[in-house]
């Protein structure tokens, strides 16, 4: 512990140190998120790299998970842009919904703080997910439970860190954090709904203009 701390101390302002801080943060979430925000142990650059790793994780999961745990994937239909859009899109949606709500609810974190904290919170997904994807190739059905367990651990760990991060960044109580998290998810759904509605209306409008154009163009 002391060794890690000393090591991190020596590198505290380098990108390497900021990335390695992940390993401290995931085991000491409250301490870690506090330092992340107030002691500048993380940075937006490092957070962006972590999000990049999250995208890589989702690509590796699709492409390299063993057949038994990914039976319907044909091996060729991976679309990297799709994976990128879903991962980063969901993440940014969370950040924006989080920021929009906590601004109204006396949260103390800025959008930048939320972005950094949320990115660090997703670290267990990557740390467990990437090795697990490769390991699943040599795991027969007898180890399916282990696979499921590790997968769930990754999800629950990241979820817990998300909560802890939100709590520390905004200086909330636990109850308030859980309530806010639920509201954030609802807000995300509302944002998606509004987006689709808007897209639909715009496309209908464009369709209408185009059909009017053709009507006139074909007549005269």
């Amino acid at each position, binding site marked *: 512990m002391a060794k890690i701390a000393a090591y991190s101390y020596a590198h505290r302002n380098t990108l390497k140190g900021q990335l390695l801080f992940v390993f401290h943060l995931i085991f000491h979430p409250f*301490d870690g998120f506090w330092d992340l925000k107030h002691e500048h142990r993380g940075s937006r650059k490092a957070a962006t790299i972590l999000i990049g790793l999250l995208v890589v994780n989702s690509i590796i999961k699709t492409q390299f998970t063993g*057949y038994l745990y990914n*039976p319907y994937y044909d091996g060729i239909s991976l679309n990297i842009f799709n994976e990128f859009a879903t991962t980063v899109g969901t993440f940014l949606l969370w950040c924006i919904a989080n920021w929009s709500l906590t601004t109204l609810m006396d949260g103390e974190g800025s959008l930048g703080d939320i972005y950094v904290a949320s990115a660090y919170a997703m670290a267990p997904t990557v740390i467990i997910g990437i090795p697990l994807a490769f390991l699943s190739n040599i795991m*027969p*059905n007898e*180890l399916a439970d282990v696979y499921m367990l590790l997968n769930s651990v990754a999800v629950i760990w990241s979820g817990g860190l998300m909560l802890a991060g939100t709590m520390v960044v905004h200086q909330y109580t636990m109850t308030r954090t859980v309530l806010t998290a639920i509201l954030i998810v609802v807000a995300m759904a509302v944002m998606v709904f509004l987006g689709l509605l808007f897209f639909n209306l715009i496309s209908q409008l464009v369709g209408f203009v185009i059909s009017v154009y053709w009507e006139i163009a074909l007549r005269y």
Partner: protein
Amino acid sequence: MLKRIAVTAFALLMCIILAAPAFAAAPMQSYYYNAGGLAVSAPMPYSFVKEITGEDLMMKNPETGEMESIGNFKNPGELVVGKDNSIYVVDSGNARIVVINEDLVVTKILSEFYYKGETLTLNTGAQGLYVYEYDGKKELYISDTDNNRIIHCDMDGNVKNIYTKPDWIGVNDDQAFYPARLVVDRAGRMYLLGRTVNRGVIKMGADGSFDSFYGAPPVVYSFAEKIWRALSTDAMRQASIQYVPTEYSSISMDSRGFIYVTQSDLNRKEFYGTFYTTPDASSARSQVAAVRKLSLAGADILVRGGIFPPVGEITILDINAYSPIAAGFSLFTDISITDYDVYTVLDRNRGRLFTYDAEGNLLFIFGNVASQDGAFMFPVAVSYYKGDQLIVLDQQYGSIQVFSPTDYGATVLGAVKAYHDGEYELSEELWEKVLDLNSNMTVAYTGAGKSKFRAGDYTGAMADFKVSQNTIYYSKALSEYMKQLIGNSFSYIFLGALALALVMWILRMSKRFRAFLKDGVKKVM
């Protein structure tokens, strides 16, 4: 002049180039749905042997002793093959039952039935026939549909009993009784389909008394419906429909007495919903029950373990299909089952025959609607004949088409049969032969994979099981492969490594906890 010569030469040249080489081929290509749901071409599993029309069939005139034609069939409705390979045709339009023996000579025509001094005749449009052949007896059950009765007689037309409208429960009394296809079990209980009856199979006792409606699937309630039912009164619950309205199109019995029914009106939404179900999602798949196998209690026990459930056509609107382009689901009108649980269903919509094995794997698709030998116009009945041959009754042509398995078809059926009989090695050998003939045959890869597995080629087996989407055997092969690589204790090593990591983590945490007890919290959160 030069121009004329040039034109003539050109015309001659074109004659040579464009002359179509003459060749004989089946009226359509056979195809197969691969694991991706794509129709891929396959070798023809059955070849057309001959067409039997009423005109071709001869019968000895009892008075003159000469062979005479029996005259064409008119709108025949049903065809049954007896245990001695004789064919019974319900020649509905001519109000007669024609019995054809193994050598395709007519031995009997039943058109008059003798009952208590009266002579009964059939109404045109009789739709059902069952040949009861148990304990040395040979009796006929004929659905005289438009006369609202079932005639139970011996082979000479002496009526034993007549069953009329049963005292059925839960159905409007005014509803007329139109018996259609039927089967009879060994104890003489009748299972029949009634035209306009949508509550499943009508089950009647040997004396013609009503037993119950049988085999209709219970309604599966959605979440919202469950809440609604919880809120409604008992009377409301009583009044709500308990069974999915089902009008079966056909009923058949296999050699062990299990009843198979087919259904032709499928729910489009549920039909599409089943495509992404896994083979073990039996309850989801039984929702689209184009084919049902019924237990004694009326439960659906058909195994739907194929990559797709047995619903016939998977691509239901295919612009590249052979003409005539028919859209929509397969409309199953009949089913026939072999002794080794392979069954063939007849699709009236596109004139196709779909063969599935006992596990629900698709084996063959062939047949077409066309005016050609080996094609159908309005097929109504199918039956296995002399083992693996198939005969199909066409209502519009009034003919019986006979198909016999090709080399390919016989190999596939042989492999399935060998597996059914427990000769696994023979089965695997035959599956490998099938793969030589048709590398698109998904099911065959399971057989070939098992063979490689047995020979110790685990990576090869894994590749094969992956193609046939057989996760269970893939896992077995993977297990064996890992054993081969790192000895017998792969699982222990794997779990041991995990456990070690966990123990180290706990030790570290306990050390920290002891430090916490000693020093207290260093920093306030």
